[in-house]
């Protein structure tokens, strides 16, 4: 648990458990995120499966794009607002908004309000959206009290905590708790589990060489665990670490999004991949 968030998180967990009683009556808007949309749709389908297993009534608004981080992190506040307007309009009427990514959820939860400081109407709407936005894995545990049942997946895994998930949203226990219920799966702790992997959105292309040094250290730690799978909750980090592993010729370990494993999709994905090879 991050040093700073611990108190706030326990509070939010408690207040949320009360609400979870009639989750099926709540409308959950699913924000796919652009990396999942383009690079790994299976994570999106796995997320919907899990949310439905948890009893949620899931809807996927068709008019959605991106959370706006590339503009926000580049300092383009006006561009961020342009992207945020339609996200707020599309999602503000749901009871909950869930994203399969700590960094995109963090963007809506923490950063939208930053760009609407001088616009009280939109600030209010951004705050309203922020209050009901969740990262998938923490939503499943903290709000839905979800436990995966009858999921089997053979092998050992190590876990990379994304910086935004871990430090900004306090996601740590939730994925581990759910993964411990998966039959056949062993956890191998990762040294420096919450150290940045060097992705950082635009950072990894702007400062590719620094990013490369950082991710090389991450892959070293990942390989040292001798785990079969690297799991995480953010596609950005996973693509970065997996891409570096592959560049270094390490095919002995495979990166999967936690949702894919929990939804029981992992066997198919790994199988399909091996068939292609």
């Amino acid at each position, binding site marked *: 648990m991050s*040093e*700073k968030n611990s108190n706030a998180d326990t509070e939010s967990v408690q207040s949320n458990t009360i609400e979870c009683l009639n989750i099926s009556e709540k409308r959950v808007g699913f924000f*796919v995120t*652009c990396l*999942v*949309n*383009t*690079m*790994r*749709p299976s994570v*999106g*389908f796995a997320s919907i499966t899990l949310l439905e297993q948890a009893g949620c009534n899931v809807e*996927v608004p*068709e*008019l959605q*794009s*991106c959370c*706006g981080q*590339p*503009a*926000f*992190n*580049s*300092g*383009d*506040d*006006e561009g*961020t607002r*342009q*992207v945020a307007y*339609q996200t707020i309009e599309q999602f503000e009427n749901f009871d909950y908004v869930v994203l399969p990514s700590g960094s995109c959820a963090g963007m809506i939860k923490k950063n939208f309000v930053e760009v609407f400081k001088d616009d009280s109407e939109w600030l209010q709407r951004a705050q309203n959206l922020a209050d009901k936005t969740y990262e998938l894995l923490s939503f499943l545990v903290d709000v839905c009290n979800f436990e995966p049942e009858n999921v089997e997946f053979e092998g050992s895994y190590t876990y990379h905590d994304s*910086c*935004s998930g871990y430090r900004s949203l306090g996601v740590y226990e939730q994925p581990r708790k759910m993964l411990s219920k998966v039959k056949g799966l062993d956890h191998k702790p990762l040294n420096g589990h919450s*150290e*940045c992997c*060097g*992705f*950082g*959105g*635009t*950072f*990894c*292309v*702007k*400062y*590719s*060489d*620094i*990013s*490369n*040094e*950082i*991710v090389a250290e991450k892959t070293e730690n990942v390989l040292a665990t001798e785990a079969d799978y690297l799991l995480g909750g953010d596609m950005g980090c996973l693509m970065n670490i*997996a*891409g*570096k592993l*592959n*560049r270094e010729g390490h095919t002995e370990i495979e990166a999967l999004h936690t949702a894919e494993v929990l939804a029981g999709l992992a066997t198919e994905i790994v199988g399909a*991949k091996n068939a292609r*090879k």
Partner: protein
Amino acid sequence: MHANKPENFYQNVTEALAQPDLKMIIRRTTDKAETKRAEAIANFPEFEKARQQGQKVKDHTIKYMDHYLAEFEKNAAAQGTIVHWASTGEEASKIVLDICRQHEAKKVTRSKSMLGEEIGLSHALDNSGIERVETDLAEHIIQLAGDPPSHIVWPAMHRSREDVIKLFREFHKDPTYSEEITDLVRSARRDLRTKFLTSDIGISGSNFLLADSGSSCTVTNEGNAELTITPPKVHIVTAGIEKLVPSMAHAVPLLRLLTRSATGGEITQYITFHNGPKRPNDADGPEECHIVLVDNGRTKMLADGMEEMLRCIRCGACMNHCVVYKHIGGHAYGSVYPGPMGSVLTPHLDSLKVANKQTHACTLNGRCEEVCPVNIPLPKLLRALRAESWQKKYEPLTNRYVVKAYAQLAKRPRMFQFVSSCGVVFMKLFSRQGWIKSMPFTGGWTRNRDLIEPESKTFMQQYKASKKAKSSGGR
């Protein structure tokens, strides 16, 4: 070693990454610092409370800066200290030089002060022909080597033991031929001792200025600040105005945070409160005391909404825990203050135009904020500087176009999804066995890592198709 410039950041980074031992050398210090800090915090259950207290003290003093500055000036003057005000670094250096000239000083001793570096005092003294003696061991090493500092707590961390052995043999009058650390330290001590006693003026920085007593506090491990200040006839303090706290009681929580965050120690060897010139019955001490209070961009930071940065107590924890600093080291930043805190400070001390690249050299992972003992939201401040830089159009044109094109697209979801699906088709052209090794427009990524092959259709395409199939099947 030549001093890097902040505006050459890209080049500095390339040079730093090309140095084969740099990473190992940095890690030797930062890894130890990280471990020791973690142990110290684990043994300090009140840490969170102290941190909030520390933040409050700083915020309060900053808010009532005018009041406390006036109080400090009044109380310092009452002790016989002469207070000077400098709005720029240049002005501050000039005040110090003028005092040196008045006293016809030939030699000055200095204890470590980052503010001294900030205002360019080393160069100013060297250019004036006055002999400058750095008395902090690490500062002594980089003075011999002619290096700028690479860290705010361990300015010589980039130098290896072998380097130090060589430097001491070359420059010390009576050098040691042993390679043991204790012998090396002794050699430095021998060399410095005589200089302490023959110095005309002692110049120090300050960790805290106490408004209610007009005193200045120094925190060291070597006792060199005490020896710098006590023997010479004249003592000059240079300090940033943000060093102010209302009283000793307010300095204590900050002291507890400072030592633990910097070195992991519960306390340092020497914490001294200096109270003006020698009084009639005092056995020793300077006869004349000056304090130069330096603004150098600080009030502008207040006006620009960067007041949180003025809380900084210069502990260095943010750089010790920064993944970028740990790979490129302090010199690459090209400024006195490196790492996260430096990337926020330098644009104010120098200009955002020359130092905006550093604000982007950060993954916004939040580790620095997590360890900062006074809760400075460094990532938020860095992001705010990026926004300012964007508004002032300092970013390279290509970056601006790419980001603008992205925003134009992302605000139109239908277009965005269409372009995403085209992207998938395009990427597929370059995929082999599940991976893309290189393709147009992804140079930054594929330069160092492979890109996973996407599925054949985007999520939205697949989702819509399955929804359609479901609804037509149901009819």
